[in-house]
């Protein structure tokens, strides 16, 4: 970061990378979205509500949500083994738990909604970008939802709290805090932290993350509007 507070990729401390979201990009999925979040390129596809296999996972009183986050072998500098790593299994779980508060599956007992996420190219902050795409894809699939889930990381780089840290900043940075937020309900649904923050930095980091989530929300909303209402935005 230089003395004017400009970051290694030319952004200001409170600036997101450029984000574009396309809705309904897959023909065979019930809902889908493609997101470019900086250099991250991620697809999300939704199937369901549909029958649960294996059957013992089914819940008699509600539908269930499942999530698989996966990185393509070619998505990172060194080829990644295609088998799911422990990291991917953990991320699948936290993404599922970030989406659960938003979806309403009470009316679909004994069914499952599957969220499949494929990271085609990774450049830091994939779990947040993946969540942003998955949330839009769930809405595209017509799954009833309380709110969209918007996600974005904040962190500490060169002793400053910054929004949306990229891969380079993550490697050199002092802290990385991914946050997912439901903007209309004011609820944090994913929060993790790697790195060292004082209590006041902690507070500022969450606030910075939430402000980023609110910006992401507008982009998600616009992407959905574009698909369903074209240019004549109501």
């Amino acid at each position, binding site marked *: 970061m230089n003395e004017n507070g400009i970051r290694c990729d030319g952004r200001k401390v409170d600036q997101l990378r450029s984000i574009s979201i396309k809705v309904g990009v897959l023909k065979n999925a019930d809902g889908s979205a493609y997101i470019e979040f900086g250099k991250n390129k991620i697809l999300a596809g939704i199937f369901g509500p549909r029958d649960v296999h294996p059957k013992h996972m089914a819940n*008699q*009183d509600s539908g269930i949500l499942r999530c698989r986050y996966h990185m393509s072998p070619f998505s990172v500098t060194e080829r990644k083994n295609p088998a799911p790593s*422990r*990291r991917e*299994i*953990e991320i*699948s*779980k*936290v993404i599922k*738990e970030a989406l*659960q*508060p938003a979806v309403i599956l009470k009316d679909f007992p004994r069914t499952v909604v599957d969220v499949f996420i494929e990271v085609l190219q990774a450049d830091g902050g994939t779990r947040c970008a993946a969540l942003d795409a998955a949330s839009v894809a769930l809405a595209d699939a017509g799954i009833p939802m309380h709110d969209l889930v918007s996600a974005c990381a904040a962190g500490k780089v060169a002793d400053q709290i910054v929004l949306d840290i990229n891969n380079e900043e993550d490697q050199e940075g002092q802290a990385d*805090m991914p946050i997912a937020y*439901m903007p209309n*309900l*004011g*609820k*944090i*649904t*994913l*929060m*993790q*932290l*790697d*790195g*060292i*923050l*004082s*209590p006041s930095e*902690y*507070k500022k980091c*969450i*606030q910075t993350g*939430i402000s980023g989530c609110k910006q992401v929300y507008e982009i998600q909303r616009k992407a959905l509007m574009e698909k369903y209402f074209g240019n004549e935005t109501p």
Partner: protein
Amino acid sequence: MTNSVILAQLKRDRILELLKEGKRLDDRGLEDQRPLSIDVGVIPKANGSARVRLGDTEIVTGIKIQPDKPFPDLGDKGILICTAEILPLADPNAEPGPPNEEVIELARVVDRGIRETEMLDLHQLVLIENKSVIGIFIDNSVTDAGGNLFDACSYASVAALLSCTVPKYEIKDELPVLVEGVTSKPPIKTIPVSVTMARIGEYIVVDPNSDEEACMDARLTITTNSEGNICAIQKGGSDGFTFEQVVRCSEIALPVGTKIRKQLEKLM
């Protein structure tokens, strides 16, 4: 509704009713942990070990220290690997087999607490840069699963680390050779303490037991270091937290952590 769902709902109603009066099922205050007992050196064949009991949860943790190759991109650091397993004898619902997502999350959260606080100075564990380093392997075995495995495994891992001895290795013909009878203390920089809280309705409770975990809305694990900083966080569970609630959680985790840290410091 199935019977188990009705039972779970009744339990949640009862827990919430008590919380309204500031009480819990096991008579604790909202910010009280269950009694914690720590024994170290319980497995003499390990380089460090601990048996931790936190209420109805018990963990046996062993540390093995041996030379290894460094990770390709971290040639100037020793290796730290942390695993966890819920043994089939610990829980009627546990099954032997490959770790499921809960267990993987458990191991990674415990690992993150130790790694991100920089508890160990891994630079001091290098024998030959990029070629040979000392590896510290922390294996947590859950022997009794009574809720809040995150904190119990974390305390057991930290206790085992604080009390472990590092064997000495010398390089002969570019290969590490054990020097018999010479050991040193591990390079400890700070003591991480993990504090897990559950949100049930509007209430935040510290150290949830299994009944509370079964009906909680969401969970937050915050790890702090000796300097009073926040170093690692993991949110879990199927609902969320407001901004005020996560700030409140950090204000709880610091003093509760300080209390536990005093108990851990005695082990050094």
